[in-house]
């Protein structure tokens, strides 16, 4: 079969700008014209619509599934269940514990049970209601702490309810200190709330395989899992990235991939699946809710002596990235501070709550909220300025982390705190829309108190604990229309962050060529890894650089062969020698030749943690950011307006300074959302607010102006000195806002999101 009529585009806009510039996005014109093909926009002749029946119960047995009535409904073409899964009915990023379609039990509300393909979405919706599932409803497991320790609870999976337990011990775990503060902190379940719901189009192929066009973060891991479930060799399951409407971690696990392919292969027809917002809330994993017990000890002068912490992460029904959350959560548990002694334990558990997995700031958001709350509490106990306490204990290059890893790259934490502290403060509010409550006229200034708070974080960049983390790029250089042109081809997912722009910038700078075309991302080139963990500029950027360097070497060889001159550089369309002399015009030298090279980039090796002590060089790089939040709180109504949210972040090297700013702005907004409004509310395993009416994300009236200070202290171990950017600002924004609200109200506020009830004692 052919490609879809509306299909992903090759990006070939004429744009210029190399490393360090901020050129326009190559997909920008398509996006502002409304012509960019997102996954939900795909369309194919003869296609039908797929839909998913999901469990209404968080925990139940399935006695039977009756599909006859649904199948008989006019306009329905197929109804499939677990019995129709061609390969193994199991997938998962870390553990293969997730059924494609439920068999004899469901473990969370919203678990997929059956599929329908029909002529129209409305027909599919009505047909879903005709599928008869006989459930035996069971008591759900819902408390993360009990799931970790209570052996009497039902075991949700073969190996029990603990997905991972990790201990980290540093120095003297029983150390004592002059001043001790403790607290129990909780964090609600946050949703990625990307704006483009899950969607894709599966097109059956003549070779018995399938072509899947979709929105994802990681084509190759989808390909591997989908092929396995379909019982097909990977080369018969080809994936092409279409436009992705945001991701933030929520597209790392499978959603409609196997389902759409099953229907397409069953029918021999293209099948489109496109979730609506409600289904999207059930169709992807969320951020792990957490409960964390912290105790900090310090000297009278404010030097940290020890940190003790026990942390629980609710992973929900399936493992997803829970093991990584426990790894990140424990290894980052003391924050960007020098702590000589520590005893940390973390548990990630199964429950019958919604499955939780990847979300921006994975595993670091939870402890950062807790330890930054503790730092403010400690500052109060010491009578110290909270910024000063952080500066005093800030880690730096050469510091040793809680896992015994020596930081061998810049770590300007104190500098970041100083910078946000010293930014000018906003004047008192005078705008009627600017008070807490906004346009809703709840105060004209009555009850409003201002507060200032800080949040600082450390986040590991890229994959950790011994994973061979890499990306692949293919670069082809040739003359097209008299102009040297490079085609860059990777499988990396552009999810909005601007990776397409960065790839072009790197190729322009390395090849000295203006015209860079981006091949659609697909699985016909090697793995790029996921657009997560703030890793793509580092890894795929590194791979594009390596491929460009290999292409350049071949150009130099060509020049040496023709002219007997050793060239060392490509610049402005010329081949240049070490002394700056132009050796040849690149277009003339290339003539009809096509030079193509494919290269990988692997980051430095990391190592697993010692299972007993948690010691080890687990991480390749850290990102750091600091926020200062200024809030106005209506203390009588418990409403909050964040007045200013300033950030300083070290990015190593800003390949694209404007895109870096965009990441910091957007990440900060998500952190603000978690602080004051965002939570998937779950009661007895049932989601109470799966809609944008009741799952609130910040509007333009909730986000304040931001001042951003970007530091560039290059990491000598990373390509161009880059440091991952995307995640840290999401993480440090939340405690900054929470601490500002504490400063305004004097309340302890041990849980985010902070609700009006928490501020008014109701």
């Amino acid at each position: 079969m052919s490609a879809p009529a509306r299909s992903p585009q090759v990006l070939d806009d004429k744009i210029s700008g190399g490393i360090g510039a901020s050129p326009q996005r190559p997909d920008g014109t398509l996006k502002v014209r409304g012509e960019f093909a997102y996954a939900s926009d795909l369309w194919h002749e003869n296609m039908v619509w797929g839909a998913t029946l999901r469990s209404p119960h968080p925990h139940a047995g399935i006695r039977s599934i009756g599909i006859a009535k649904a199948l008989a409904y006019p306009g329905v073409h197929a109804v499939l269940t677990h019995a129709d899964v061609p390969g193994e009915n199991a997938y998962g990023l870390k553990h293969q514990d997730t059924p494609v379609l439920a068999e004899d039990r469901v473990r969370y509300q919203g678990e997929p049970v059956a599929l329908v393909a029909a002529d129209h979405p409305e027909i599919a919706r009505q047909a879903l209601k005709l599928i008869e599932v006989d459930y035996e409803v069971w008591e759900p497991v819902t408390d993360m702490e009990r799931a970790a320790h209570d052996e009497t609870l039902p075991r949700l999976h073969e190996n029990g309810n603990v997905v991972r337990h990790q201990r980290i011990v540093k120095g003297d775990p029983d150390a004592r200190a002059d001043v001790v503060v403790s607290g129990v902190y909780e964090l609600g379940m946050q949703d990625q709330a990307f704006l483009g719901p899950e969607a894709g189009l599966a097109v059956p192929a003549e070779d018995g395989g399938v072509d899947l066009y979709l929105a994802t973060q990681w084509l190759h891991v989808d390909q591997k899992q989908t092929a396995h479930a379909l019982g097909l060799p990977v080369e018969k399951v080809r994936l092409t990235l279409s436009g992705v409407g945001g991701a933030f971690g929520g597209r790392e696990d499978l959603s409609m991939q196997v389902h759409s392919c099953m229907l397409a292969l069953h029918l021999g027809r293209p099948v489109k699946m496109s979730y609506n917002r409600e289904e999207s809330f059930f169709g992807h994993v969320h951020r792990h809710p957490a409960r964390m017990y912290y105790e900090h000890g310090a000297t009278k002068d404010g030097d940290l002596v020890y940190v003790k912490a026990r942390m629980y992460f609710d992973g929900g029904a399936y493992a997803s990235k829970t093991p990584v959350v426990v790894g990140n959560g424990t290894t980052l548990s003391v924050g960007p501070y020098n702590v000589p002694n520590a005893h940390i334990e973390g548990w990630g558990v199964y429950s019958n709550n919604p499955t939780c997995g990847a979300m921006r700031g994975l595993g670091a958001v939870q402890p950062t909220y807790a330890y930054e709350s503790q730092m403010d509490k400690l500052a109060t106990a010491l009578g110290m300025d909270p910024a000063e306490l952080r500066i005093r204990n800030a880690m730096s290059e050469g510091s040793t982390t809680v896992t015994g890893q020596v930081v061998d790259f810049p770590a300007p934490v104190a500098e970041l705190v100083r910078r946000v502290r010293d930014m000018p403060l906003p004047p008192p509010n005078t705008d009627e829309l600017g008070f807490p409550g906004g346009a809703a006229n709840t105060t004209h200034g009555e009850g409003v108190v201002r507060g200032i708070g800080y949040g600082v974080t450390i986040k590991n960049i890229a994959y950790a604990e011994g994973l061979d983390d890499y990306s692949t790029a293919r670069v082809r250089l040739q003359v097209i229309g008299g102009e040297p042109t490079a085609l860059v081809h990777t499988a990396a997912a552009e999810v909005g962050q601007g990776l397409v722009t960065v790839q072009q910038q790197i190729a322009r700078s390395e090849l000295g060529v203006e015209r860079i075309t981006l091949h659609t991302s697909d699985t016909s080139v090697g793995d790029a890894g996921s657009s997560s963990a703030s890793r793509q500029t580092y890894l795929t950027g590194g791979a594009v650089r390596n491929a460009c360097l290999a292409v350049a070497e071949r150009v130099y060889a060509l020049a040496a062969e023709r002219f007997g001159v050793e060239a060392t550089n490509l610049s402005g369309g010329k081949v240049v020698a070490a002394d700056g002399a132009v050796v040849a015009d690149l277009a003339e030298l290339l003539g009809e030749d096509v030079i193509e090279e494919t290269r990988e980039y692997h980051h430095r090796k990391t190592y697993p943690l010692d299972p007993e002590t948690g010691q080890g060089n687990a991480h390749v790089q850290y990102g750091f950011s600091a926020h200062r939040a200024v809030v106005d709180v209506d203390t009588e109504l418990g409403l909050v307006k964040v007045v200013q949210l300033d950030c300083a972040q070290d990015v190593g090297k800003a390949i694209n300074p404007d895109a870096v700013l965009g990441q910091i702005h957007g990440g900060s907004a998500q952190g603000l959302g978690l602080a004051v409004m965002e939570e998937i509310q779950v009661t007895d395993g049932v989601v109470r607010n799966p809609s944008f009416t009741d799952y609130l994300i910040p509007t333009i009236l909730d986000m304040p102006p931001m001042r951003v200070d970007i530091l560039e202290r290059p990491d000598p171990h990373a390509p161009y000195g880059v440091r991952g950017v995307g995640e840290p600002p999401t993480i440090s924004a939340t405690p900054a806002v929470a601490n500002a609200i504490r400063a305004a109200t004097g309340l302890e506020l041990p849980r985010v999101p902070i609700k009006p009830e928490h501020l008014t004692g109701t």
Partner: protein
Amino acid sequence: MDFFRPDSLAEALAAKAEHADAVPIAGGTDVMVELNFDHRRPAALLDLGRIVELHEHGRQDGKVRIGAAVPYARIIDELGRELPGLAMAARTVGSPQIRNRGSVGGNLGAASPAGDSHPALLAANAEVEIASIRGTRMVPVKDFYTGVKRNVLAPDELITAVHIAPATGAQQFSKVGTRNAMVIAVCAFGLALHPDQKRVGTGLGSAAPTPRPATKAEEFIATELDWESPKPLADSVLRRFGALVAEAASPIDDVRGSAAYRRHALAVLARRTLGWAWSEHLGGGRRACA
């Protein structure tokens, strides 16, 4: 599903009489959500979009008559002087896009306790004009709501307008939401001074199964206010008023907030809005619509 597109009110009423199960749709801001999420599959939709008189406002018997489908955006732009409380409430409805389509008639038809216009309508003693082929009747808005998302409409009736006396005194509207824009009310309060009647009107939203006035609070404050020679109100009076408003509520715990918080917040809103309105009254002028 059928789709009826009457060109006149008479046609619409005839269609509604013949198809009692047809759901009227104007701005679509409630009905379409129910359709999009399969919460409702009515036998027919009755589009009120082309009925001119439902989209007009004007004066009738000294009152402002607002056609049921006049969008909130026009109430804000065109009726802010005569109906400041309703205009303030309209400004808090959803988003600009929603205010361009949503209408008071739709709010009344849906009769959600969280509808933003209800507290303002209650405080201003609005009357709802209801029509059918049997004739037209007027229902005081306080008698219009009969339960959660229920109202007095008979199956053959349509809401055609609301009638509201132009403000004779200060009016206020406040709404609590957990976001600074585009949010459904956790609770809301409307207040109108009626110096001509020497009384204060109130309305509570998202505070009970139906929108309702705080009758005891109205009675209390009527005895406290000196309309002849107005003086600043004692804090104790404002607080008592707030407490009585809170007592009038019978809220629930839900995803948007707790019952206890709603009561607490209503007391604060009532106290503040009365304070603002009375200061305006004392000042002799009217504060511009917020």
